[in-house]
């Protein structure tokens, strides 16, 4: 290529552009015939400024209108090339038939995830012991049955009330109580005395649920989540009939790190250990990029191969804010994990759960 300086004067545009064009095509030489043809067409339609020398960038054009125009062109060109390449590849694949090389796996931030040294190895004795003797061990050994108290921040309104009611239909043995302006620290001993194993507090802001405090009783831990995108049963499309009283099955996806394990165990301990398979209901906690998606479904085996599912609702998304050791004590409690924004999430490929 022999053009290194960038001519950006608008007076003698046409000439220069043409100059570029010819040189460009010369330089490319072995490029596809189709492309050159297209270039020619473009030239015909409008003094084509589609291709630029390598050091030229659209942003250097000073006239805004012109720049915008050029940029649109540039983009269109790029898109065309991309589509062509795609077509070509597809053709090649078809021609090769079975011998075609396997498709490349797309790069996503999940499969590019930074290695986390806390990922739990199921064979590890020490972690097995740690988990075997933690606060949830009583539930996992079958000694206690979950009993959940659901309450809200003070004076809940609108959606929050309905959200609580619907949560209570999802979690078996859940009791919704009106908060009555009570302090959580006063509520907790009463809950413990009445054999509750969980205290769940939904916080609301402008009539929309936005926070969840999940406190395992009698001695912690306490997790604080942000709730977003809560969708109630009424707002669901193609929703099934209301859930039955059967205790659902629980699916926990992608809770791999040590922290994720603790959170997963916490969710698991909300539901009774022996699900009623007659009810065909499933509660799913799916973790993806540290967001936990909750869905509640009913399934049916249509035949040996086909399964139908029907969403029952509600659905919402949780994001962990903190995990505190012991029952709720935001002032003097010791935190096992706190989300520190801009420090922990500086790397987009690093996940905590």
């Amino acid at each position, binding site marked *: 290529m022999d053009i290194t300086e960038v001519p950006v004067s608008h007076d003698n545009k046409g000439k220069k552009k043409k100059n570029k064009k010819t040189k460009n095509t010369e330089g490319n030489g072995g490029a596809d015939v189709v492309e050159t043809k297209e270039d020619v067409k473009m030239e015909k339609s409008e003094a084509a400024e589609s291709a630029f020398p390598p050091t030229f960038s659209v942003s250097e054009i000073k006239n805004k209108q012109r720049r915008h125009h050029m940029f649109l062109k540039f983009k269109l060109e790029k898109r065309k090339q991309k589509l062509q390449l795609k077509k070509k590849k597809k053709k090649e694949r078809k021609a090769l038939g079975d011998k075609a090389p396997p498709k490349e796996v797309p790069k996503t931030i999940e499969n590019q995830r930074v290695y986390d040294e806390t990922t739990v190895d199921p064979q590890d004795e020490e972690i097995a012991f740690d988990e075997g003797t933690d606060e949830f061990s009583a539930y996992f050994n079958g000694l206690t049955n979950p009993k959940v108290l659901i309450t809200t921040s003070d004076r809940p309104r609108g959606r929050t009330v309905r959200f609580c009611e619907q949560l209570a239909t999802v979690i078996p043995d859940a009791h919704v109580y009106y908060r009555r302006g009570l302090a959580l620290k006063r509520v907790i001993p009463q809950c413990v005395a009445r054999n509750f194993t969980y205290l769940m507090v939904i916080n609301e802001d402008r009539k929309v649920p936005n926070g969840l405090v999940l406190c395992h009783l009698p001695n912690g831990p306490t997790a604080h989540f942000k709730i977003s995108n809560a969708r109630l049963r009424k707002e669901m499309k193609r929703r099934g009939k209301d859930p039955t009283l059967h205790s659902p099955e629980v699916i926990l996806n992608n809770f791999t790190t040590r922290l994720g394990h603790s959170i997963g165990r916490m969710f698991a301990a909300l539901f009774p250990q022996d699900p009623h398979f007659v009810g065909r209901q499933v509660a799913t906690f799916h973790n993806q990029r540290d967001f936990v998606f909750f869905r509640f479904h009913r399934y049916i085996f249509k035949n040996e191969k086909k399964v139908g599912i029907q969403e029952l609702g509600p659905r919402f998304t949780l994001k962990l804010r903190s995990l505190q050791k012991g029952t709720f004590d935001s002032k003097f409690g010791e*935190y096992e994990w706190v989300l520190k924004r801009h420090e922990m999430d500086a790397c987009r490929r690093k996940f905590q759960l």
Partner: protein
Amino acid sequence: MADTSRLCSVWLGSETGILKGVSLTRKQAFNFCNTSHLSRDQEVRALCWGDPDESELLVGSADGTVKTFSTEKGVFTETRRCGDPVTDGPFTGLAALMSGSSSVVTCVESGAVRVWREDGGDEPVTELHAGKNVCRMRQSPVNRHVVATGGKENGLKIWDLQKPESPVFTAKNLRDDWLDLRRPQWVRDVAFIPDSDKVVTCTGYHQVHVFDPSSPQRRPVLEVEYGEYPLTALSLPAAGGTVVVGNTHGEIAVLDLRKGVVRGCLKGLAGGVRSLQCHPSRPEVASCGLDRFLRIHGLEDRKLQHKVYLKSRLNCVLLASRDLGDGGGAVEGEVKEEDGGEEDDVWETMERVEEKTKRKTTEEEEQLQKKRKKGQD
């Protein structure tokens, strides 16, 4: 076991009752316990060196026993029972007197500070009561028989173990606040400032206090506030003039003890700090806590130097002074760096000289040229 234990320069006690050793040069961590007999009763609550050579490690467990671990042999050599865990509560402090026979000072949550001699049998030689809810007992690094205690609603007290009848110094509570309300007290950690009588404490109400027993004032001579969460641990760096404190949210800060301001924060922690220790000679601080990581920060640049995942929640950390934090490799590296620095200096001076000469030469040349021009003219 013996080979691995000799390598370790950082020792940690975990909530699952495992004593862990970390070798930073090899980037390896070792567990020193019998994995078949794990139990949470053996939770390590206190760690200290048993002798000045740092060949013995004293481990205070939650079940009221103090075990001696030999770092030479890599095994637990001795177990002695120090008090009843049911009535006393867990250990809050442990120290070795290191005067002739191996005597151990223990402190429990109920406030009993006891001195145990090896040949003394099951009864403590000395016993004193430091009040209820003691959170920490620390030994003075200079006078081994001086200890400080403090806890919830239990201000700082300094005791001389040779005169256990009454404390040497009792701190007075802070003045009532502007509403004439009593200020609550909650000492979470204590440290003696070397080269002076002063004692620094950190409280559950995010204050750092400096007490001076040599002055008549019994209230703190300096008060610093840091953050809004309870401070749980503190440690004094070798350089002096500063203190490193950590809180329940995993924030560590270096505070200046002369002006009472924050010098800088150490980043990278995810969970609450349980224990902090500065290296006795190098500007490094080790921290451990509920997020199951051991982290070592440099105090000069405040950068994270090492991060080790240790699988259990960690209660206490202890650094060895002998091989300078991270063993031979780092020392060599440092020496090399120093060499490099000297060379750099040499080059800098040489360059300067060259530049000067160059300038001179150019100037001279110019003058010469001028002269020539003049001559031509």
